[in-house]
């Protein structure tokens, strides 16, 4: 009899469960339905009792609490998840494809000698597991068959709906012996970055610029447009990485989440990390030379053209 249960590992930071935790419950339940097993959720560190109550959602059979530490520490997570895995013998352990998820999931896979598929956007189970994931910056979708079990997975945030109905799970404390010498990284604190004179998350109109701008000198053009539209200037990651605009102008997963009335994306391809920061805008308008750019998938209005052609015309109309 092969293993059928599924173990998902929730994520928390600074006192709160992160939204991906509830999405993991959905993905985990779907997988457990397909394998015919129970769904186990685990929470490692922080206020585990409160977190466990929140994770006690419909479809969850057991919530395992590991009361070790306040904040995420990858050495603790690896020790806890591998010990839980050994105790539960599941068919799959599913973790978030977050910055912290990718800080421990690969070590969990290595230590347990499990195959590892990260950044899953869909899971299908029919005799065996097939994972859908993207390559080449979302331009290609791949199906990956996993030919042995058990397996370690990480799932992309925002791809599964959150589970939030209250359930009747058993909540079980799980004791892990953690050897102090195995803790090799130490978190000294957190810092909010990108605070400054402008808060783009409060802006009503946003003009946002990406790699398509080409050169730093060309920023003047979009600055002029932002001024003409009385909009706030923002940018995608490459512009901030290049040091052309400060971090407080960055829209996306590692930057700010913006929810303006209008988001005008100029020369932005629409990588998933960027979209995470602006998909809540009321009206999304994209100007990009590549008709297949993913930004058009979420845009309400689009122009497939060079921003250097369109922007000067637009400035003229609003001056």
């Amino acid at each position, binding site marked *: 009899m092969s293993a059928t249960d599924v173990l998902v590992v929730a994520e928390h*930071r600074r006192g709160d469960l992160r939204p991906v935790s509830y999405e993991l419950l959905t993905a985990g339940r779907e997988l457990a339905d397909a394998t015919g097993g129970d769904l186990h959720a685990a929470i490692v560190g922080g206020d585990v009792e409160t977190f466990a109550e929140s994770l006690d959602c419909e479809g969850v059979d057991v919530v395992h609490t590991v009361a070790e530490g306040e904040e995420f520490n*990858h050495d603790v997570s690896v020790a806890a998840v591998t010990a839980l895995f050994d105790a539960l013998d599941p068919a799959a352990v599913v973790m978030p494809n977050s*910055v912290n998820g*990718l*800080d421990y*999931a*690969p*070590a969990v896979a*290595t230590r347990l000698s499990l*195959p*590892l*598929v*990260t*950044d899953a956007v869909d899971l299908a189970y029919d005799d065996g597991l*097939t994972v859908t994931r*993207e390559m*080449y910056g*979302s*331009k*290609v*979708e*791949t*199906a*990956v*068959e*996993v*030919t042995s079990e058990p397996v370690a997975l990480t799932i992309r945030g925002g791809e599964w709906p959150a589970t939030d109905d209250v359930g009747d799970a058993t909540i079980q404390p799980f004791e892990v012996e953690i050897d102090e010498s195995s803790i*090799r*990284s*130490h978190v*000294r604190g*957190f810092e*909010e970055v990108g605070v400054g004179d402008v808060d783009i998350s409060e802006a009503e109109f946003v003009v946002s610029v990406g790699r398509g701008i080409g050169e730093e000198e060309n920023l003047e053009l979009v600055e002029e447009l932002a001024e003409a539209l009385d*909009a706030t200037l923002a940018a995608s*990651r490459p512009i901030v*990485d*290049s040091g052309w605009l400060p971090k407080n102008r*960055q829209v996306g997963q*590692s930057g700010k*989440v913006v929810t303006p*009335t*209008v988001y*005008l994306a100029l020369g932005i391809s629409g990588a998933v990390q960027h979209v995470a920061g602006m998909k809540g805008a*009321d*009206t999304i*308008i994209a100007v990009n030379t590549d008709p*297949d750019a993913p930004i*058009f*998938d979420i*845009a*309400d*209005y*689009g122009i*497939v*053209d060079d921003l250097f*052609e369109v922007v000067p*015309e*637009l400035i*003229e109309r*609003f001056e």
Partner: protein
Amino acid sequence: MKVLVTVKEVADVADDFEIEGLEIPETFLEYDLNEWDDYAVETAVQIAEDRDEDVEVVAVTVGPERSEETIRMALAKGVDRAVRVWDDALAEADLLDPTTTARILAAVAEREAPDLVLSGVQAADDGFGATGVALADRLDMGWAAVVNDLELDDSERPRDDDEAVTRASVRRELEGGVEELTTVDLPAVLTIQTGINEPRYASLRGIRQAQRKELAVHSLADLDLDPSLVDDALTLSGLSKPESESDATLFEGSAEETAADLETVLRDAGVGAE
């Protein structure tokens, strides 16, 4: 001190690429050094430049002969020598589990015994984002993932009677504009995020020098690895262009016309109203 940098030549697909079966024909692929690895190389070269002691920077890659051109660019930017691993078995594999890649890199790392391993956060092509941490665990080293700031301090003593170790103080870039301040003692693996520095361009002199630098090639057998390790549990079974979910209204015509259409949308949304 020795710094090992893992690098990868990655493919990007041309705008109008096509898929044939489980492959994208070579004509649609453009190769370059993985962007994240470019930042990792720069981090390593800056460490070599800034430290008082001699620092050797070694690049390691898993890739075919074609990738040597890309690896030479890393040498031209200041990497001292490079190791390339390739094998017929690797040429036949369509997809490698990131933990398998980590096993191969670990075999090189064990021979090199570096003090610090730098790895890009992810590869732009397959985007697993897992190799660096898997490598650290296999090497039994400490690690930190998604590092966008790094300082090395040589005077740290884990306990009072210990010998001094080099400690890395790093910032890990979390989601939502929050950074985690973390310390990890060397030897360690750090995965490097874009934006940590400004990668240099190779100088002409650097490019000339790179031609004379050592670029060793090893097969899996050379590293005492069984070629069957590439037959891991992951198999590529489908490759497709994602179906466009776009329901955007596209404005067509000259820039003058499209700008006029855009003006209407913007004014309807309240832009330009006093």
